[in-house]
């Protein structure tokens, strides 16, 4: 799995390049992601990486930062 591509997808969905630089940023606390952003993110993972993340697996504790999202995706891929 291309880690940089994942980070770029997150940055695109959040519409903020801060994601590229600060990879331990809590995206929910920073207001960069909400329930609607989450949906766009999961759709983008499916479309661009071919990884299906069931919405019931996603939670805000383990999928909160760019680094943690990469880690979770690696487990699913």
């Amino acid at each position: 799995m291309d880690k940089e591509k994942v980070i770029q997808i997150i940055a695109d969905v959040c519409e903020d390049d801060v994601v590229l630089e600060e990879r331990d940023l809590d995206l929910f606390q920073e207001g960069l992601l909400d329930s609607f952003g989450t949906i766009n993110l999961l759709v983008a993972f499916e479309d661009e990486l071919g990884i299906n993340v069931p919405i019931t697996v996603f939670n805000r504790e383990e999928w909160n930062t760019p680094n943690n999202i990469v880690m979770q995706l690696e487990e699913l891929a």
Partner: protein
Amino acid sequence: MNVLQQIASVAKEHPEKVAYRSAGQTVTYGELWEQSNALAHTIKKMNLPKNSPITVYGHMSPKQIIAFLGVVKAGHPYIPLDISIPSERITHIVEASKSSFMITTEQFDLEIAVQQQAANDLIVKGEGAQNNPTTWVSEDEVFYIIYTSGSTGKPKGVQISESNLRHFVAWINEACSLPNGVYLNQAPYSFDLSVMDLYPALTGGRELHAITKSQIENAGLLFEELHDSSINVWTSTPSFAKICLMNPEWNDEQMPDLQTFLFCGEVLPLQVVKELKQRFKKATIYNLYGPTETTVAVTAVEVTDDMIKTYEHLPIAPVDTGVLKIMNEQMEEVTDGEKGELVIFGPTVSTSGYLYAEEQTNKVFKTHEGERVYKAGDLGYIQDGHIFYAGRSDFQIKLHGYRMEIEEIEKQIEALDEVGACVVLPVKSGEEVTALTACVALHNEMTEKPFKVTKNLKEKLLKAIPNYMVPKKFVYLDSLPLNMNGKVDRKRLAVEVGL
């Protein structure tokens, strides 16, 4: 019978029946009735100024609705304040409404100008109190006040009377053939979509099942809760249904009792309806229309297969309801196909308008041929005997079902020390607004990276306006482009920032 009398008769006949359920807590109609009597009794002993509003701060606890009923039994209107409302906005609402007291059902740490007490303490103090209908809010007295975004930069309080609410409940029961059973509540009580399920449920002796913010944020918990809920009537924004549709297992096997979907608060996309029809084959879907100012909703359309095949956008009303008309600037009804403003008639139009805001009230509440009407600012047209929505005549938008005035957001951003000027632009996909972008000209040259500046501005902004009103993206410009009249050229700006 008025709203409280209807609930009283349920409590008398079926005291053991569950009235409300949320996060594992329940209250029966008997408990709801007695505890709200107790709370009302304690409030009355405080001798607060007559008819002064009382704020109720909290989320989905059963105590929240006990407090609502207790307040109106004591003769005061209530103002629901959800935990998601930021501190500065709460302070503003408490002061602007001249409210005399605050009841809390969740931890509350803010210093405010009025006394506050936990609902539970008020109930305990008044235990055993008798019912006293003489003080109940009735007829044209204000039952609740809900604050909504205002273009002046501050939210405005919409006053809904007992008569408004009673007529709304009677109308929706009939218009949507509401069945008995379990009703879903998804919206926070500070958002008037919640009224659409709260009072039809309580006055009809039905069970209201409220889901919480933390359940919505954790899809695993949310679907577990929905699966075990036996919900018959679903009320939500279309945006919330979209989230649920992301789960392929959300269907009539998981929720076999679901009979009726009620959607309101924003445009109902055709795609959402198509998907729902496939997954819930036996359910009926209603598209409802109405602003807070006329008690949640005034028209409903049952979405038929024929409509899905024929139209690109779903109708919001039949043409002949008598409560929704399309009018031109001279207040004459338009002909078929012609665009005009939606004007609302009938007994659910707010009797007293906005609280302490006469000028704003007079701008949109008018008398037309002897009848009180509300000019919604929404545009529409008539086709094939239906009314269709066609956007706004001003800067009000709906984002994920939340109504907001772009000008309020701009004024709040301009109030920040660093900011010289600001324009907020909606990011659209078709007619639907999907996000907001703030175009900002700073006073001084930027010394930090843009994302750090944005982070700082967003943090400050979150104290003044709710999360959902904070623009997602901030773009920095040396100055904002002006048109020939010296106003910011929004169209040129949209092109410049690539929208």
